[in-house]
């Protein structure tokens, strides 16, 4: 194993240990079960998601406030449309070319589902199918920005993935 692989292993171990302690506390019994569960979870996580698309943690944290802001806007917007008597909706579709690896595309889809007015519904070729709640509201303008943020998180560089 090279140095990179050890670093990845160490980060995953830290992460799974933290999740275990949050889930089950620091009782002796909980730690005893954790001594088996944590290595097993770490092994499984490395099998399912090898460390080659390195998630840059601080970029993830840096994106968190704008994610919370966006999901607040998204929730308030959809609640307003649901409750207002006229129910202002103008549903429609856009297809957006996306230059992200598969995992990144799923992450972008999940994120868009929580942002105002957008909902990902799979891909056609290399284009992401996005449902819009209101085609006049300009919700689709946020998509390239979110794509760049996700690209920055998994690749460490957001600049070469433009709109």
């Amino acid at each position, binding site marked *: 194993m090279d140095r990179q692989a050890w670093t990845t292993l160490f980060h995953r171990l830290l992460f799974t240990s933290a999740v275990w302690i949050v889930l089950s506390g620091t009782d002796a019994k909980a730690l005893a079960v954790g001594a088996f569960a944590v290595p097993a979870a770490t092994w499984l996580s490395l099998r399912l998601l090898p460390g080659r698309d390195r998630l840059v943690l601080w970029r993830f944290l840096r994106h968190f406030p704008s994610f919370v802001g966006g*999901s607040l806007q998204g929730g*308030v917007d959809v*609640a307003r449309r649901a409750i207002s008597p006229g129910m202002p909706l103008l549903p429609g579709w856009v297809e957006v070319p996306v230059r992200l690896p598969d995992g990144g595309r799923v992450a972008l889809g999940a994120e868009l*589902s929580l942002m105002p007015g957008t909902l990902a519904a799979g891909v056609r070729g290399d284009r992401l199918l996005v449902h819009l709640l209101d085609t006049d509201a300009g919700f689709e303008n946020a998509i390239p920005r979110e794509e760049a943020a996700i690209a920055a998180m998994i690749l460490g560089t957001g600049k070469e993935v433009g709109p």
Partner: protein
Amino acid sequence: MNDLATYAFTSIGLFFFVAGSVGFLRFPDVFSRLHALTKADNLGLGFIALGIAFQAESWRLVALLFLIWGLMLLAAGTMSQLIARDALRERDGR
């Protein structure tokens, strides 16, 4: 003071759950309904977790509440994409 924060934030959370359910019933098609469920319920659970966090006796419980919220976000984001993809396939007859 903590109780007040709990009342305030859980009420906001309940409001979003109600709004999401209203949207789920009123919106015209499966895609619009998914918007209502994912976005409003995300905020609903987030605010309820925030409200309950003011009653937590330790930082571990606060972390646990937000871990639950995070897992719910992941599940909502993933499930809504799967349901939307499937509904689109069915609609287009593919």
